[in-house]
């Protein structure tokens, strides 16, 4: 069975050949099989959104090829667009002055949904997304979560076999974020059999949803496998996590023996130092020597690596880097 998405040696640069050149996608190749839920993980600026835009025909790559459902994105962009639904995070992909029904009717016409099927399709989607009672309410009056549900309905209006889902839970409260995750996994992927390319920088989301994940960093794919195998790849490593109060930068950290990877994040006023190591006891004493006059240590624990630790270990980058995604 041919793959649904085939990306081969893809390059996309911005400001090519000029000062400040950005290598947004730098020689990326991968395939997504029919019915697969594939995750593309990386920090902001890794090139995930650029890649999605190339696949969805919004950008023309500089080199390489992309085939979607057997169609080349450069030669048959309209056929590619008929096969895909593109869902982005945020709320502004709908007409806020129109109602959900008016929005869906408009997109049904753009996608050429047969006229005699439009009503039935819209009824089905509004029921599926639990928006029936909001069908005639202006979008601007819906909550963020409802808008995202309606965006999902919009993407499904022509029943595409392939979905490109870019940061779907960004800005959603935990309840709706969980709804969206469950819907993607259980309804779209498992029940309806959609092939899904999901980009996210939430590791837990990727870990819970994806059949395979690719780590993307600085325009390149550094690793690609199932979440389980990726975690197993550093099975002999453990994670030493120190929770402390005070500021600490990654750049200040010295190169210590037994320190294999380092990730520093801030959450709720605390600084979390997560270190990959093959010997947590030995590393701990050295780290304490270094940090004791800089921060106040709150707690120390040794854990198994998460997918995020694998990412940090394999790419040397943190998922919580600042800046906009390229």
């Amino acid at each position, binding site marked *: 069975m041919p793959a649904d998405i085939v990306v081969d040696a893809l390059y996309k640069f*911005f400001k090519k050949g000029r000062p400040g050149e950005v290598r947004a996608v730098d020689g990326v190749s991968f395939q997504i099989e029919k019915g697969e839920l594939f995750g593309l993980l990386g920090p902001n600026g890794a090139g995930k959104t*650029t890649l999605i*835009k190339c696949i*969805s*025909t*919004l*950008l*023309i790559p500089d080199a390489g090829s992309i085939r979607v459902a057997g169609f080349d994105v450069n030669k048959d962009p*309209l*056929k590619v*667009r*008929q096969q*895909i639904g*593109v869902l*982005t995070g*945020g*709320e*502004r*992909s*709908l*007409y*806020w*002055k*129109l109602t959900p029904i*008016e929005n869906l*009717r*408009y*997109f049904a*016409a*753009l*996608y*050429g949904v*047969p006229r005699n099927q439009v009503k039935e399709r819209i009824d089905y989607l509004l029921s599926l997304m639990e928006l029936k009672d909001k069908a005639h309410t*202006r979008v601007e009056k819906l909550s963020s979560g409802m808008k995202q549900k309606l965006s999902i309905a*919009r993407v499904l209006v022509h029943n595409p076999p392939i979905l490109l889902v870019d940061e779907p839970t960004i800005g959603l409260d935990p309840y709706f974020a969980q709804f969206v995750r469950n819907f993607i996994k259980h309804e779209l992927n498992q029940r309806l059999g959609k092939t899904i390319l999901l980009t996210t920088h939430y590791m837990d989301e990727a870990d819970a949803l994806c059949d395979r994940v690719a780590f993307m960093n600085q325009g390149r794919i550094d690793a690609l496998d199932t979440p389980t195998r990726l975690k197993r790849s550093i099975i002999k490593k453990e994670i030493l996590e120190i929770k402390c109060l005070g500021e600490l930068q990654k750049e200040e950290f010295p190169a210590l023996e037994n320190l294999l990877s380092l990730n520093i994040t801030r959450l709720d006023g605390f600084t979390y130092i997560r270190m990959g190591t093959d010997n947590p006891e030995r590393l701990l004493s050295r780290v304490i020597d270094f940090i004791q006059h800089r921060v106040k240590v709150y707690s120390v624990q040794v854990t198994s690596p998460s997918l995020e630790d694998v990412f940090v270990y394999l790419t040397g980058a943190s998922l919580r880097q600042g800046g906009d995604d390229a």
Partner: protein
Amino acid sequence: MSKIAHYLRAINAENMKEWRIEWKYKPDFIRQFLEPFVYLFPYFLYGYALLGGRYSSHLKSITGVDDMVAYTFIGYLIMGFLNTACWAMGSSLRKEQWYGTLEAIFVAPVPRWVYVAGMALHSTCHQGLIMVFQAFLITTVFALVFKTTGIFLVLLIVVLMLMGLYGLGIMVAGFTIGMKQWWVISEALSTLITVVTPIAYPLAVLPIFLQKAALFLPTTYGIIGVRHFLLGEKLAISLPLIIFRLIVILVVWLTVGFALFIFMDRYGRKKGILSLY
């Protein structure tokens, strides 16, 4: 569904969507009907000041029409369609960007000119409605009487002129993809065309080089043709030649407009420009 039927349906969906959105902004909707009068009256007042009244024997001697109000009004009415091209069609894609929906519609399986065509349909209907409203009001207030014998030829001339202007509109829409400050082009084009087109004056009063420039504009032929049939203005160019030149202009302008739009669309996707604005 055939490709053409699909595109026509998408064009109409775009048109209907714009009506629905416009209707949600009611004060602005009403403003759009009243605003044309604000711009029209300075023409009349200027004419009254210069002529000392509504009728002019000098205007009659050079055009065959002595009623300044009727003469100016026809020109002004027709020029409303220029705004359709330069502003409504031109800004159609940028408007989607303001809504935040541009990328959502750009991944739909229709060519991108379909959205501009949808806006052309919408703004033509919109402008047509405003014209009817204006015509009713002005003809009532000033007791204007138009000839109706050549009404089908009037419609033919207006349709040909509109098609030419659509070429201009799709060209401006192309500029919106590649240029952040696209309105500079739009403003320059609409101002130049407004000056060169004989809206409130006959072609003969323009300097020779502008008279020559005016011959490349569909609005020139649109206005002199319509004024001829509705008011009896003397024609400096024969009717078959007017229609022939309008056809040539529409073919050239549509071809250039589409070529530029397709080029700019490709350029925008190559450079990733749309995300920047």
